[in-house]
């Protein structure tokens, strides 16, 4: 059997959820643990079909807490790992998500967002978990969260999520939503080698010289797998460079600061946006996920009516891509942030905006997607035409 997904030159008609599985397998994911939940279940189902044929392992755990625990364990044993869930399960995962941040364990967590709070509307679309992705686990911590809006992105950004996770030894969250997850689109899967696939840094020093959490210029210490002879300690406690619990202020601050620095000094690699007709735009729509699809259509329609509209699609939600958003804010007449929540991302835009331009919101929390027409109407109102 080939070690990676067989090349598939013919176009396929895939759901977002299915494309995510393909992306994960392409990236080298060989362990998946999950618990059934709408609207993420197809990811588990397809993983259970495909992973064993590649020599990988799928396991259905007793809950989402266990699912994330298992993928952390598998990752520490050297295998790229992933889980997928939706809002209620994502809430349960917050505890172990913090562990993965603190112990610097690469893993990918997919959250196919549905409307909440609580059991909410399991089969309806939402973007209500944007701030939970940022701050859901306790304690001050960095996090990476990517947003997908097409079937292709479900594939390609899952590959990217693994690359970021492995490169920076951090959990990476992929925020999908019910519309993206269940929309079927044409996709041609790339052949092995067409997209970059990165591996975690491995120790170059022999075990007797190895200091597991020593700072490096990149801020990312190498990660040996259990069983390779390094016999180091992994803990969720604040630890010293050797991995052992510490309460010394001169050891605590350097660890926590390094966790932030290893992300912040690689913003250029982590932060991604996609621009559409932004060059001369006077009215800018900032959107992400399924809403970005409506926004793209609305911007095209607005252009047809002579409005200078543009779309800035956020791909990286966290860390918020300030340096990619800020230049636009200083240039446009107004910004519209449509999203399927009460304004979880528009508050970030306003925070960065600092009065440079007018920032308006367009929110739906009724389980329905914002339509192109709704966005277009707001663009028309903003233009004064």
């Amino acid at each position: 059997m080939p070690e990676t997904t067989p090349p598939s030159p013919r176009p396929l008609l895939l759901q977002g959820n299915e494309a995510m599985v393909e992306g994960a397998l392409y990236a080298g994911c060989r362990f998946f643990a999950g618990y059934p939940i709408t609207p993420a279940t197809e990811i588990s189902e397809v993983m259970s079909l495909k992973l064993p044929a590649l020599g990988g392992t799928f396991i259905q755990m007793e809950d989402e807490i266990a699912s994330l625990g298992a993928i952390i364990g598998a990752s520490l044993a050297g295998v790229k790992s992933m889980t997928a869930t939706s809002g209620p399960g994502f809430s349960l995962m917050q505890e172990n998500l913090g562990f993965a941040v603190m112990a610097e364990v690469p893993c990918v967590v997919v959250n196919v967002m549905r409307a909440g709070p609580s059991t909410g509307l399991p089969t309806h679309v939402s973007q209500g978990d944007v701030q939970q992705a940022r701050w859901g686990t306790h304690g001050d911590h960095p996090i990476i969260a990517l947003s997908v809006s097409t079937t292709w992105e479900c594939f390609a950004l899952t590959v990217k999520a693994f690359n970021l996770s492995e490169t920076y030894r951090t959990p990476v969250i992929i925020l999908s939503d019910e519309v993206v997850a269940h929309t079927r689109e044409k996709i041609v899967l790339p052949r092995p080698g067409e997209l970059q696939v990165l591996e975690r840094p491995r120790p170059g020093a022999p075990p007797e010289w190895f200091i597991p959490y020593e700072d490096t210029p990149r801020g990312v210490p190498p990660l040996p797998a259990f069983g390779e002879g390094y016999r180091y300690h992994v803990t969720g406690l604040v630890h010293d460079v050797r991995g052992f619990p510490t309460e010394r202020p001169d050891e605590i601050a350097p660890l926590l600061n390094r966790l932030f620095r290893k992300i912040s000094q690689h913003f250029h690699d982590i932060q991604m946006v996609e621009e559409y007709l932004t060059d001369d735009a006077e009215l800018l729509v900032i959107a992400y996920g399924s809403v970005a699809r409506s926004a793209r259509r609305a911007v095209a329609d607005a252009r047809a009516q002579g409005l200078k509209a543009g779309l800035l699609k956020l791909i990286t939600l966290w860390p918020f891509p300030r340096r990619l958003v800020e230049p636009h804010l200083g240039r446009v007449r107004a910004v519209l942030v449509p999203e399927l929540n009460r304004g979880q991302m528009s508050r970030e835009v306003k925070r960065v905006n600092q009065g440079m331009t007018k920032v308006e919101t367009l929110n739906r929390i009724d389980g329905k997607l914002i339509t192109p027409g709704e966005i277009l109407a707001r663009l028309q109102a903003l233009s004064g035409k």
Partner: protein
Amino acid sequence: MADVTKLIHKYLRHEKKFPHVWCPGCGNGIVLGALIRAIDRTGFSKDDIVLVSGIGCSGRMSVYVDFNTLHTTHGRALTFATGVKLANPRLQVIVVMGDGDATAIGGNHFIHAARRNLNLTAVIINNSTYGMTGGQYSPTTPYGARSATSMYGNVEHAFSIAELAVTAGAAWVGRGAVYHATLLDQLMEAAILKRGFAVVEVISHCHTLYGRKNLLGGAAEMMRAQKEAAVRVEKAATMTPEELASKFTIGILADRDLPIYTQEYRKIREAARTALAGED
């Protein structure tokens, strides 16, 4: 240095974080000693052992030993261990938990790990209380006992951990006590060598908190009480329920050959390869 001490020191991280956090007289050191002696006898290389622990006094054990060590979140040790074992079945994974860790917050993971039957060793140190947080009542605190959160007496009824493991389907279940150090060594070794999910419940004591609140004396008195309350499984079979009322059994409670998860999963891989080979 006595040979037995030398042997234990061979497996400790000397230059690392000592002294340890355990109170003088704690049973955790006896459990650690038994575990190390058992590992030494089984002949596994240090590199092949992964010691996974949860949260609490027992959770700190992973810091002190020179294996691959993983100190997880509270109650979740078995879930991390499941991932480690599935990702690399060659590794010998041993999980150390406390009674609250394994059967309160981690109770669901515990019964499902038993049912699933991975080749894991689970050591549960049962001292009837949450020691690290100050002696609150746990799922194994006896009815009526006083604790930091049951100063008027505990109205809940205790789990019998070993029996719970038997019922949940564990392949091998043993119970020992820190007083019975020789038996404990034997149980640990048998549990590690057992192919399948093996549980060793170790009756221990927390004289600092549980003992003091219930006027049970110091470590020596509480270990003596273990001696008096322990009955060999074989002898218990001949005793009446009334005679066993204030006793606990020690020895091997279950030993059965069950299909091991990783072996079963190999069949799944073969089936998937056959099924998907026809597609492309």
